[in-house]
C-alpha cells in the first residue's frame, strides 16, 4: 500500500507540474496575441488616441459603423462584442485607460444589457489568460463566484473555458491566424435575413436600478474627462414590453433613447440586430445628433 500511495502521490505531483507548465505556455502565447480578437488587441496595446470608442454587446458591434465616423474625421473603433455584457465593456474601458489611451468620446450601448448584472462567461473568459498579469483584470473578477479556482488553480481557467481559450485558440494564436473581429474598425455588418426572427418579448425584463458595470463606466469617463454618450439602440416592430425603454430612461435619465431611430423591419436582420442598411441610418443619426457631422 505504501508503494501505491507513493505512486499516486507522484501522479498527483506530475499533474500539478503539467498544469503549471501548460498554464505558463498558454499564457505566454496569449501575451503575444494581437490579431485574433478585440480583447487581446487592447490588452497587448500601447497608448493610442481615439476620438470615439464604441462599447457594448452585439447591438453595438452590428449597429455603429466606424467607417462613417472616420469619413467625418473622427478616429473611431467599435469594441462592441457579440454576447458581451456591460461587465466586459467596463473592463475593456479600464484596460484602455490603464494603457493610457487618449479617448475623447465613449459611446456605450446601454439598453437590454442594463438588466444583466453578471458577466458573460464566453466573452469574459477571453480576459482570463491575463489574470496573473493584470491587477485590473484580477480585481475586476475578484467578486466572481469561481474566482479562487480561476486565479489559484493552475490551468483551471483554460480547462473550464476550453472552447474559448483552449488548445484550438492557442494554436491559432501561435500561427497568427487572423479573424474578422478587427476588420471594418471592429464593426460586423449583418445582411438582411429572410428567416430572421422578427419578434421579441421583453415584458419580464427590468433594468437593474444600479447596474454596477454601467456605473463603473460612468465613473471612469468622469475621472478621465471622457465624454460618455450612452444610447439605447433600435429593436424591430413586433416587440412586447417596449415600456422597458421608459423604465431605463426613468432609472438612468442620461441615457439617450434611440429605440425609435429605425423602425421598419426591412432594416433588421433579426429583431435585436439591424442590417448593414439599418446601421447606416442609425449611425448617420448618431453622428448628426452628437457630433454635428
Amino acid at each position, binding site marked *: *500500500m505504501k*508503494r501505491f500511495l507513493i505512486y499516486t502521490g507522484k*501522479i498527483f505531483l*506530475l499533474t500539478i507540474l503539467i498544469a503549471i507548465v*501548460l498554464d505558463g505556455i498558454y499564457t505566454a502565447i496569449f501575451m503575444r496575441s494581437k490579431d485574433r480578437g478585440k480583447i487581446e488587441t487592447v490588452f497587448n496595446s500601447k497608448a493610442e488616441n481615439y476620438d470615439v470608442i464604441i462599447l457594448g454587446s452585439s447591438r453595438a458591434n452590428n449597429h455603429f459603423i466606424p467607417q462613417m465616423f472616420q469619413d467625418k474625421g473622427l478616429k473611431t473603433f467599435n469594441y462592441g462584442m457579440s454576447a458581451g455584457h456591460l461587465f466586459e465593456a467596463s473592463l475593456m474601458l479600464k484596460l484602455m485607460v490603464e494603457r493610457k489611451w487618449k479617448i475623447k468620446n465613449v459611446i456605450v450601448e446601454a439598453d437590454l444589457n442594463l438588466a444583466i448584472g453578471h458577466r458573460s462567461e464566453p466573452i469574459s473568459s477571453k480576459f482570463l489568460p491575463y489574470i496573473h498579469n493584470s491587477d485590473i483584470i484580477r480585481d475586476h473578477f475578484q467578486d466572481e463566484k469561481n474566482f479562487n479556482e480561476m486565479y489559484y488553480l493552475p490551468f483551471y481557467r483554460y480547462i*473550464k473555458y*476550453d*472552447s474559448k481559450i*483552449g488548445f484550438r485558440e492557442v494554436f491559432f494564436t501561435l500561427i497568427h491566424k487572423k479573424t474578422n473581429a478587427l476588420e471594418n474598425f471592429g464593426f460586423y455588418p449583418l445582411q438582411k435575413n429572410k428567416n430572421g426572427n422578427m419578434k421579441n418579448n421583453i415584458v419580464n425584463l427590468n433594468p437593474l436600478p444600479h447596474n454596477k458595470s454601467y456605473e463603473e463606466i460612468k465613473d471612469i469617463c468622469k475621472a478621465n474627462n471622457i465624454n460618455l454618450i450612452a444610447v439605447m439602440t433600435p429593436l424591430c416592430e413586433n416587440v412586447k414590453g417596449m415600456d422597458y425603454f421608459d423604465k431605463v430612461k426613468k432609472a438612468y435619465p442620461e441615457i439617450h433613447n434611440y429605440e425609435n431611430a429605425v423602425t421598419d423591419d426591412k432594416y433588421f436582420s433579426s429583431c435585436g440586430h439591424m442590417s448593414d442598411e439599418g446601421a447606416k441610418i442609425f449611425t448617420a443619426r448618431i453622428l448628426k445628433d452628437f457630433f454635428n457631422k
Partner: protein
Amino acid sequence: MFFNSIAFAIFLPIVFFLYWFVFNKTKSTQNALLIVASYYFYSCWDWRFLFLLVFSTFLDYYTGIQIEKGKSERSRKFWFWLSIMVNLGFLGIFKYYNFFASSFSDLLNSAGIKASPILLNVILPVGISFYTFHGLSYVIDIYYKRIKAEYNFVDYSLFVSYFPLLVAGPIERATHLLPQVKVKREFDFQIAKEGVCQIIWGLVKKVVIADSCAVYANAVFDHYTSLNSLSLILGAVYFAFQIYGDFSGYSDIALGVSKLFGLDLLRNFNYPYFSRDIAEFWRRWHISLSSWFRDYLYIPLGGSKGGLWMKIRNTFIIFVVSGFWHGANWTYIVWGFINAIYFLPLLLSNSNRNNIDEIKLKWDFDSIRVISSILLTFIITCIAWVFFRSKTITDAFLYLKQIITKRDFGFQYLEPDRYNYELLLMIGVFVLIEWNNRHKTEPLSGKRNLLKLALAIGAIMAFGTFSDYKEFIYFQF
C-alpha cells in the same frame, strides 16, 4: 455522478481509503462498504430509482433461492418465470412501453383506424438494462443448474449493484464476479497500478477522443442536408470514434476503478476497429453484451445447430434484439438488422470464425489483404453507425444518399466555427497508439510508465473537451 466529474474524483479516494484502511477486516465489512458506496453512487443519479434497484436485487436473490430449493419442476419453473417476467416487465414498462404504444397506434392509423396512444410519462432509470441483465443471467444460470444460488444477500447485492459497473456495464456473470466477492480482498500493488493506468487511459478516450469527436459529429449529423460528401464521410468516422471512445473509455474506467478494490471485471472491448471481419468485430465490441446474447439467447434458440434457416433465423434474432436493447427506436433495430446482414455471408460460408488469431503484419501481400479487410470492416461499421446515430431511418438513408450524390470532397466549414478535417490528425495518432499496444489492455502501463502517464495527463488537459460537456452515451441505454 459521472466518472469524469469532480464529485467522483472526491468520492473514489474516500471509498478507497475506507475500504483498505477502515473496513478491511473481513470480506463482509468490505462488501458492506461497497454496497453503501454503490447505493450512494446510484442515488446521486436519482434516489427514487434506488427502490427499483433494491427490489430487482431482492427479487432475483429470492427467486434464485426458491428455484434451487424447488422440489418439483413445476415450482422451479414458476419462480424462474416469475423472475423473468418481472425483470422484463420493468424493462418493458420503463424502456419500451411508449415505443410499442406509439408504433401500434401508427400501424392502426396507417390502416385507416384512428387511434391515439396512451403514453407513460416516465423517465428511464439509469442502468436498468445493465442490472436487469445481471439479474437475468444469474436466475437463468441457477435454473439450468450451472451455478448455486447465493444465500448471502449482501454478497449478492454487491454482484448486482457494484458501482463501477452499475450504470453502463460491463454486464457481469455470477460465475465470474460472485466468487470474487465471497473472499476477502488483499491489496495488490501491481493490480492497483494497472487500475490507475486504465482509469487515465479511459479518461483520454472519453475526454480527448469521444468528446472532441462529438462536437464535430454533432455538427455534421445536425446539419447533414447542407454538407458535402467529405463532411458526411468524416461525420460518420467521427461518430465511430465518438461512440468507441465514449463506451470503451467508460469500460476502461470501470475496470480500472474495480482493480483498485481488488475485483476483476470482464473485459468489454478489445480494439474492435482492428477487426478483419464483422464476426471478429462482434467478438471485440461490447464483449459482455455480445456474449450475454450468445449464451442466453442464441444458444437456447438452437445456435448454429439445426438447419440453415434455423441458423439464419437465430442470427437475425440476436442482432435485432441486440439493436433493440440499445433503445426503443427503429434506428437501433435497423442497425442490428444491418449487422445481421453483414454477418450472414460469413455464416453461410462457415467463415465466421476465420479471424480468431492475433493480427500480425509483415512486408508481404498477405498483410495488404489484412489491412484491406480491417479498412473494409471499419467502413461497413461506419455505415451501420449512421443508422445508430440518425434520428430517423429516413435521415440515415438521406445521409448516405447524400454522400453518393453530392460528389464534393472539398474541405468545408462546419458550425460552430471549425473545418471538417481538423480532428483527423488526432484520430490518426490515437489509432497508432492503439495499434502499437493492441496486445495490452491499455498503452500506459509497462516501461516508461510515468512518462506515458505524463503525456496522457497532458493530453487530457490540453486537448480534452470540457466546456462542451457530454454524458456517457451508454447511460441512456
